[in-house]
């Protein structure tokens, strides 16, 4: 439909220029031309719309929307105005509104391929598959000769779950081909494999196999064909064919476990025979690790000992630092880890015998002899063994690693071993010395980023944030956004998260939130990243990979990187909800040791403290702003970036609605990681505070399903029942739902008894004791001294870990127990842990 406002020919040609300038990203020129038209025709809607679009490209979004609205007012029936309106919304990632606007545009210009394509891309991005199917169908109808259009429609059906229609569409296109495309046609090769992938998903393996064999000579992705052939045959019970296919695959890649399990299944082997298969394969592929390592998983007792010995011999003789890593997975099995220890001990004795350790002086010149490296890495294995968390004998671990260090001349091995030493110290809680040793390792080879990375990480563990970023900066690009800016840009999630957790430990809640939000932003970016591939992949034709990408994106927010940041952020927001003063300057050190005990102050003193804190905060912010300005000056010529108006995260921490902010994190956590225990327990806390009792109960029930005996779940059950016992005002529906579904506490007996019963049935667990303490507190049932005794007892339990002891310290502080005595007792058991040191 033509515009309602035709232009004179001169202006019309100017308008065409505006479009051209926009497409070639010459926004200034475009704007100039648009203004020229508007001078004569100030109310020309489409020109106004284009002006809005161009202004938006210059970053002036608000103004752009105003102009675009004005444009629509002038020319309601112009597809250009609506299209622009949609593009503006799209640029703001408001995809729902963008889709609406595009649909309006299409109403006035139903044949526009451009608008249809833009609409389709948004629909698939938003997973509006029905809409996507419709748009794709229109595109096929308008240009049926283009294969991409058919493939696009098949994708739409496939993603919507309509496999048969997806297959049909692909077949229909194939039938239009007069002769088969040549083998060099990659798009064809992938399209036929894509069709096979769809048939495979229907579960009709016979049909899938037949189709596969019909294309196996044409498709060029050999691995895909071989894997599909193996899988289909196995599923169909064609064991001989499956076996053959798996053997071909193993020949290609003897380091893929899936092939071994496939081969085993196709052979149906058990017991002795099973081992024999692996012995044969190990002989066939002497350099492969898998056939030697896998039998350690399924053999037991003496049989285990025999395969383990062979494997250890092979690995230890090669002096590889990773031998322990390869075997760690077996350590859950007590018998196996004991066998491994005695075997390595034997190996060590033998190695020592073969070549008695020479005097240190003979070893200082030149690199270690091969035999010495065997000895060194056998000692290294034992140090890692004794440092394993199930064993954790720090003294033994240290003595082995120190012996190894003495043997290793000043060469590459030194770095490797210092890394091991630092790790042991970290596990023992001596984060300060661990950091120093890691820095030693780094100094051995400053060009190796791995050392640099680990050193920075250990600095963060020791809360030396400044040193950490300075160390990182030796490898980051510092000229544009500074080292931290580069790490954010390069989506270095581990660093951002560790930095945030360090700030949590230091009570710098604003900075901590700042970092966790940066992780959130990275996940948003990863979500947006897929957008371009909706069209790109159709052009490239690699459809199977595209489908895998879409499916991965659908579960992206379940990633452990996100979960870790989310749990942290939710805890902070809960804390800020209870103690908003923690958001303010020095009061934010509330979790630190030198914290002002804000809550015990009088009202007047609170006001004073608050004022002081605010003054300090202002000072800090000013300093940070100045530092940022200075850094910018130093990077002269650098691209002008948007100024961060909250570099310390103070605004984030001072939110007036912490619970709403917590929800932003909680929702994706519950939606995408429903079986993640910490997510459900965090959800319970948030919803209780928000007085959304049914939602809280839902989380509690889910958590109970995941881990019925978990201490946190127990504490929450008690708290929930206690809440119900307080006879809260609840609507009859809510009440009846709770009555029906919440049956986790016994009908008989008191809640306190229930709590104590849990304690006695989990007598070995320090965490259980802590949760009972918290539950007792919630019940208001016992005296401070009794609580304290429980925490002290927990400290002495055999299975108590350093982390338990640290949690206990926090709890002792919370119940205002004897912190001094607690740290003293903890220090006796964890002699190296810095957290229990006496402050000078």
């Amino acid at each position, binding site marked *: 439909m033509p515009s309602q406002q035709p232009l004179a020919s001169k202006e019309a040609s100017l308008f065409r220029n505006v479009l051209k300038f926009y497409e070639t990203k010459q926004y200034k020129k475009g704007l100039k031309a648009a203004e020229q038209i508007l001078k004569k025709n100030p109310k020309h809607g489409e020109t106004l719309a284009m002006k809005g679009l161009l202004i938006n490209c210059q970053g002036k979004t608000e103004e752009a929307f105003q102009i675009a609205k004005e444009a629509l007012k002038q020319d309601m029936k112009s597809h250009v105005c609506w299209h622009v309106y949609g593009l503006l919304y799209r640029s703001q990632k408001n995809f729902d509104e963008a889709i609406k606007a595009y649909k309006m545009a299409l109403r006035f210009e139903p044949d526009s391929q451009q608008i249809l394509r833009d609409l389709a891309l948004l629909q698939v991005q938003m997973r509006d598959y029905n809409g996507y199917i419709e748009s794709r169908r229109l595109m096929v109808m308008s240009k049926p000769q283009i294969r991409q259009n058919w493939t696009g429609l098949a994708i739409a059906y496939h993603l919507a779950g309509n496999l048969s229609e997806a297959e049909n569409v692909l077949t229909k296109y194939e039938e239009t081909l007069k002769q088969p495309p040549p083998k060099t046609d990659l798009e064809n090769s992938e399209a036929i494999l894509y069709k096979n992938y769809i048939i495979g998903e229907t579960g009709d393996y016979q049909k899938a196999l037949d189709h596969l064999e019909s294309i196996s000579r044409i498709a060029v992705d050999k691995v895909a064909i071989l894997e599909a052939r193996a899988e289909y045959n196995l599923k169909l019970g064609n064991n001989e064919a499956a076996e053959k296919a798996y053997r071909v695959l193993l020949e290609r890649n003897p380091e893929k*476990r899936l092939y071994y399990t496939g081969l085993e299944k196709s052979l149906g082997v058990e017991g002795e025979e099973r081992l024999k298969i692996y012995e044969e394969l190990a002989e066939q592929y002497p350099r492969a690790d898998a056939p030697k390592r896998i039998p350690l998983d399924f053999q037991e007792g003496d049989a285990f000992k025999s395969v383990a010995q062979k494997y250890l011999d092979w690995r230890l003789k090669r002096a590889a630092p990773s031998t322990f890593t*390869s075997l760690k*997975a077996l350590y859950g099995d007590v018998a196996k880890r004991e066998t491994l220890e005695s075997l390595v001990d034997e190996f060590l004795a033998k190695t020592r015998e073969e070549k008695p350790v020479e005097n240190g002086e003979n070893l200082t010149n030149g690199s270690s002899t091969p035999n010495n490296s065997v000895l060194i890495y056998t000692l290294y294995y034992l140090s890692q063994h004794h440092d394993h968390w199930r064993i954790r004998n720090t003294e033994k671990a240290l003595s082995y690693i120190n012996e190894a260090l003495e043997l290793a001349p000043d060469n590459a091995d030194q770095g490797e071993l210092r890394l091991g030493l630092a790790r042991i110290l970290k596990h023992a809680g001596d984060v300060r010395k661990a950091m120093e040793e890691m820095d030693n390792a780094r100094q051995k080879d400053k060009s190796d980023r*791995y050392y640099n990375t680990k050193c920075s990480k250990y600095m963060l563990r020791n809360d030396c944030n400044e040193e950490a970023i300075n160390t990182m900066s030796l490898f980051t690009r510092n000229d544009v956004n500074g080292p931290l800016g580069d790490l954010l840009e390069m989506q270095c999630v581990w660093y951002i998260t560790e930095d945030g957790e360090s700030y949590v430990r230091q009570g710098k809640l604003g900075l901590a939130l700042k970092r966790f939000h940066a992780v959130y932003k990275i996940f948003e970016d990863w979500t947006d990243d897929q957008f371009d591939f909706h069209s790109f992949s159709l052009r490239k034709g690699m459809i199977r990979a595209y489908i895998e990408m879409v499916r991965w994106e659908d579960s992206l927010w379940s990633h452990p990187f996100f979960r870790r940041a989310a749990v942290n952020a939710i805890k902070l927001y809960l804390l800020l909800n209870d103690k908003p003063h923690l958001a303010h300057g020095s009061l934010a050190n509330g979790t630190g040791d030198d914290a002002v005990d804000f809550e015990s102050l009088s009202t007047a003193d609170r006001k004073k403290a608050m004022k002081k804190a605010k003054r300090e905060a202002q000072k800090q912010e000013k300093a940070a702003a100045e530092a940022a300005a200075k850094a910018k000056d130093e990077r002269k010529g650098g691209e002008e970036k948007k100024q961060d108006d909250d570099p310390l995260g103070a605004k984030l921490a001072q939110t007036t609605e912490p619970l709403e902010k917590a929800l932003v994190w909680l929702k994706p956590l519950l939606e995408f990681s429903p079986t993640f225990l910490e997510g459900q327990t965090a959800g319970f806390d948030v919803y209780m505070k928000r007085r959304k009792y049914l939602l809280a109960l839902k989380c509690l029930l889910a958590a109970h399903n995941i881990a019925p005996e978990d201490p946190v779940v127990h504490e929450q059950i008690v708290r929930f029942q206690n809440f119900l016992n307080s006879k809260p005002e609840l609507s009859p529906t809510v009440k009846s739902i709770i009555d029906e579904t919440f049956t986790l506490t016994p009908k008989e007996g008191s809640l306190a008894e229930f709590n104590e019963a849990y304690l006695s049935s989990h007598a070995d667990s320090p965490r259980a004791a802590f949760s009972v303490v918290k539950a007792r507190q919630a019940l208001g049932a016992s005296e401070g001294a009794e609580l304290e005794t429980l925490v002290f007892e927990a400290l002495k339990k055999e299975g108590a870990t350093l982390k338990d002891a640290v949690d206990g310290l926090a709890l002792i502080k919370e119940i205002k127990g004897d912190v001094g005595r607690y740290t003293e007792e903890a220090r006796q058991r964890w002699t190296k842990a810095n957290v229990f040191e006496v402050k000078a």
Partner: protein
Amino acid sequence: MDIVLLHPSHIPHVQTCNITNLPENYFAKYYLYHALTWPQLSYVAIDLSKPSRSPHDPPKIVGYVLAKMEEEPVDGIPHGHITSLSVMRTHRRLGLAEKLMRQSQKAMVETFGAKYVSLHVRVSNKAALRLYKDTLQFEVEKVESKYYADGEDAFSMKQNLDFIWDAVKKEEAQFKKEDKKAEGEEKEGAPTGTGDEDEGDPVGDEGQEDKKPKEVMRKVKIGRALGVSDLVEKVEQPKASS
């Protein structure tokens, strides 16, 4: 250690592995670009030392090779290119780099008909140089002056893929023979293709290429926000200018 094809879900951990080991880093979208343009070519080594907490948890990556085909080869010969390769220090001396590389190279030949594969390495990176030269048998083609953003030179290295072509041809002949015989033969693996050399030297964890053209560095910084096609052009620029 499992050696498997790079899957999109591996990317966050591959990215971590890369930024842990190497100075040349990329945003996730650039890895996606590889995985969705040449899905057959990139491989990862997966750590099996910890059972994952849930079946949906992505595995930890301890090594990877990120590879591509040269899209517009200057010499007109189809060839592959190693964008980045690294193995965690904790997993050295297992021959992982070589195992990853061989999988990638085979697919370069089979799927894309590559004749050779190229890569860049910092002239100062002795360990990587040894890996490529001695273990993987690459040859130094030339020195590219100031190739890296910090001004360091790069060795441009190459490996001829004839040895894989021979194996592939042998395999095909074998399959044809098998087809003719139809069935009834004893089970027997395909003839050995890649000669499995001894792994020898410690396998390095380096080797990479700078994706950041020197002249237009600042543009690349906002690259993640660009469309994929923009990404491609940016990537090709250093080639055209060198």
